[in-house]
């Protein structure tokens, strides 16, 4: 068993949450302390058992008014899978125009998310 300490990011209160964890290989939360609300507890459990992250990156664009289009996952992906998702993003290139929300990669690394464009890139003539 081990304990881990987090500053909760759910709201500005920033509770210091202490979590008791069994089995560090596939962690299981046994106790959560220090949170003032239930959202904090749920968040802390998730942070220990399967932290999820939105990731942002860039994809090259040919003939665009910017050389890159910014992208992000529209749903969070497991922290442990970020490197694989990045590998897939790195393989993509696009041609202008690109619109906000255009899906660039579906289910990267098998994750339940899409990589979408977050800026417009106009075609240059």
């Amino acid at each position, binding site marked *: 068993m081990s304990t881990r300490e*987090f*500053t*909760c*990011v759910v709201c*500005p*209160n*920033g*509770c210091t949450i202490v979590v008791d964890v069994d089995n560090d290989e596939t962690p299981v939360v046994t106790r959560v302390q220090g949170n*003032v609300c239930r959202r904090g507890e749920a968040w802390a459990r998730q*942070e220990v058992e399967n*932290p999820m*992250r*939105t*990731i*942002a*990156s*860039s994809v*090259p664009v040919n003939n665009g008014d*910017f*050389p*890159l289009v*910014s*992208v*992000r996952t529209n749903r969070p992906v497991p*922290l442990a899978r*970020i490197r694989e998702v*990045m590998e897939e993003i790195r393989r993509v290139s696009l041609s202008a125009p690109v619109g*906000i929300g255009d899906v660039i990669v579906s289910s990267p690394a098998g994750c339940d998310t899409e990589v979408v464009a*977050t*800026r*417009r890139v106009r075609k240059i003539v």
Partner: protein
Amino acid sequence: MNMKNGTIPTICREVVVIGGGPAGLAAAIAAREAGCGDVLLIERDRILGGILNQCIHDGFGLHTFGEALSGPEYADRYISKFRDLQIEAMEETIVLSLSRDRVIEVSTRGTFQRIEAGAVILAMGCRERTRGAISIPGSRPSGVYTAGAAQNFMNLENIMVGKKACILGSGDIGLIMARRMTLEGATVEAVFEILPYSSGLPRNIQQCLNDYGIPLHLNTTVTGIVGTGRLEGIRVAQVGQDKAPIPETERFVPCDTLLLSVGLIPENELTREAGVDMDAVTGGAVVDDSFMTNVPGIFACGNVLHVHDLVDWVSVEAGEAGKYAACYVQNGSCALPCLIPVKPGDGVRYTLPRKVSGERDFVISLRVAAPWRDRSIVVRSGEREVARRKHMRLHPAEMIRIDLRKESVAGCSSLEVVVE
């Protein structure tokens, strides 16, 4: 337009907004929505949205839209509205001067002109503190960048600034760049922070540093920059309570890149030129609760007024400034006399506005001087307690807003804000 004879073309606009970032966009939209038909926004870049364009990470708009948008998406919400309202914009146009009587000189490709404005809203944002501003000793190799400049290179210009980086300052831009560089294959050795606490959001500490095993060294600063051509490394040392480096703790950290995330300075050169009174603590203008400066008809909002932590509050504040600027041009003044001073007391670094009318509801923005737990922010008028807000956690990096109703300050001759 004939300029050969030495005359300078001059146009008139009711409300002129300087800066097309989040503050300028929201101010222009609000001025238009308040009924001003003649709003002009001036933006020096080729696109609207300001610094949001290079902030490709998510987390913007949680308050306003209930979504964690990226910077460009957040900007696009406002740009779309701005375009729908058919507000006039001059892009790639830089303001060269601003006079007290609101004459603006602007320069753009092919044109130099003057604009006479009924009201001016200053929304120029802020710039980053540099190596020179914080006096880091050492040589002058390449590879030392402000974090925001590096972010611009990476996210807008497709240029990698280096492969092995250290970061000085734990402000949010530095933390975001630590993650960004890591995900793009660079090694980030560490983040160094001279203060005993981080100046970034807890979420960013977790998700940008801890997730990737990047150490954050508090009470530590860079004492030397080493390298004749490209940066070869930095010397770092722990600091004592007086923030002076402790020589025996000094060590060398090899790296080819140093990013500086050591604070932001409101970009107020035009403001000073126009004769606006400045607040030495915020580095921005002194404003009343209509966001008007001491110069009638000149308003300020967003990061040029005081550096914000969340863009959502920039938009809210700018919306107020836009509304009052429209009111100013419609009525010749907005202009309830603002005679009640608001001042920061114990534990509070600054309050904004510095004067209120007491005749309308208002918001006091403030920052505390140090981190605390389980304290209250109290607004007082002499012995009388006007408002009290409990906070489990107070942090200097986070801006606090206190909404106050005009009824609650009735009869007050001055207000003081303290931490208890």
